[in-house]
């Protein structure tokens, strides 16, 4: 498989420099680290919000750095959690003395490295709180798994926590709203094709022309189930019903929906999915406060999408609607 890269080993480093070159007024790279922070980090009087994880999910994470969202983002190798020392450096750079909230996606690697980083930062007197996002309803949270994965719902956590921090709230309050999102969000994804990592250069899994994968994550992992090819409407119905079954919402509940592209899906197709999704929301008597459509949390070049539904109350609506000014998401 062909890619617009130089050496696979350099891709994350060059991407980060390319991002800074695109947004020199907004982003700054920590010298010697694969970490981007706000150009003006740490922001006086504000709780810092940081995230991070493997690369390959662009615009996640660094695309969400800016007013009203993240202060910093650490970029691991493709699909590989950043190391604890990188995370620690980021946490310190984003602490203005008000403490730092780490938004962690629930993968063992991410959790272990963030925990270590938190321990390291706390030893240097930075107050650190953590929220672990696990919105993927495809994986049951049971003895038989390492818990649900954190996927596209993470963006809503960044948004709500970032808005709360921008208001000047303290770390406990910021953590509370982040956890409120986690408690109210569910996501389910599917793939038409596998992604191709720069290192491997071949599809992670093989999928026939008449097959698709349901319940995928965002790392090119095979899904929980392989199924025969379906129409966009059928796929949308399947994903949506899974999410709604998990959330179990009351009729009349207000929600925010996301149709998220996996990186290789034309936007045209995402809107086709959104059309059916909004019909289904209507059928279920859910009131859509906002409908997002785009590539928010990708898997490199994978073709496919995920559907996220988040139940929102007045507080979350206000936080999700609050201004944000980042390369990848602007709300005004």
């Amino acid at each position, binding site marked *: 498989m062909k890619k617009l890269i130089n050496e696979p080993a350099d891709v994350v480093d060059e991407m980060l420099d390319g991002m800074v070159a695109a947004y020199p007024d907004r982003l700054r790279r920590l010298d010697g680290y694969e970490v981007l922070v706000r150009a003006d980090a740490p922001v006086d009087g504000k709780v810092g919000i940081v995230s991070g994880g493997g690369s390959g999910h662009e615009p996640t994470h660094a695309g969400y750095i800016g007013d009203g969202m993240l202060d910093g983002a650490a970029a691991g190798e493709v699909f590989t959690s950043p190391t604890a020392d990188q995370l620690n450096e980021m946490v310190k750079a984003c602490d203005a003395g008000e403490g730092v909230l780490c938004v962690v996606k629930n993968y063992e690697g991410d959790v272990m490295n963030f925990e270590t980083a938190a321990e390291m930062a706390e030893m240097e007197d930075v107050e650190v709180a953590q929220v672990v996002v696990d919105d993927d309803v495809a994986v049951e949270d049971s003895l038989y798994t390492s818990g649900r994965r954190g996927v596209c719902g993470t963006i809503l956590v960044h948004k709500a926590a970032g808005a709360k921090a921008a208001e000047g709230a303290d770390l406990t309050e910021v953590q509370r709203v982040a956890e409120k999102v986690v408690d109210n969000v569910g996501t389910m994804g599917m793939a038409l094709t596998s992604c191709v990592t720069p290192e491997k250069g071949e599809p992670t899994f093989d999928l026939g022309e008449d097959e698709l994968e349901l319940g995928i994550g965002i790392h090119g*992992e095979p899904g*929980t189930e392989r199924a025969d090819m379906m129409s966009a409407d059928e796929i949308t119905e399947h994903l949506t019903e899974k999410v709604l079954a998990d959330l179990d919402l009351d009729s009349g509940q207000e929600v925010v929906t996301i149709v998220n592209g996996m990186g290789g899906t034309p936007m045209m197709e995402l809107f086709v999915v959104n059309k059916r999704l909004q019909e289904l929301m209507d059928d279920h008597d859910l009131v859509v406060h906002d409908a997002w459509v785009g590539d928010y949390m990708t898997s490199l070049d994978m073709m496919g999408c995920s559907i996220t539904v988040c139940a929102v109350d007045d507080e979350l609506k206000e936080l999700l609607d609050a201004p944000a000014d980042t390369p990848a998401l602007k709300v005004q």
Partner: protein
Amino acid sequence: MVDDDIQREAVHAAIEAVADRLVAEKAYLTDLDSAIGDADHGANMSRGFTKVADKVEELDGDVGEIVKTVGVTLVSEVGGASGPLYGGSIMHASQELGDGLTSETSVAFAEAYLDKVQDRGNAEVGAKTMVDALTPAVHSYKKAIEVDDLPPLTALAKAVDAAERGVQFTVPLRARKGRASYLDWRSVGHQDPGATSTLFILEELLAVAEE
């Protein structure tokens, strides 16, 4: 107190052998991780140990310090799940090598290493992880030395043999930990990448020890 220079050299040789092996097996480990994970275990391990090999070369200090550096380097180079598991556990267990590498301290190291992996990753035997290769290997090694009074080389050979069985044991299991667990029953029939890299490392330690 044993001779520092000889031990240092042995450790250097071992690290080089491990690094070479993991680089050679990069594609294979990544293939295993493609089937039930995210296709990066080969890249993670070879990147980490290549850096370790580069770094340790220059290091003096006693064996405990060198091994600690190995762990620290892995922690800051590997990332993912295997970074903290391998690196953090080596770092932690290196404390047991304060008095140099002997039969006794090697057993203590092995036990401390296994404990830390289990503590950090929270995986029992049978969860289809590196723990499945590591546990029988450490148990065999300890018994061979402490109960059967066998020489370390023989004990290490038994550990390799045990790890090999552990790797095979992971194949029919349903994963409970790590990314493979997301696949639920679909993980059955696939060999765990981390158990496999654990075996490769032990094989290289044995090969170097035999020389």
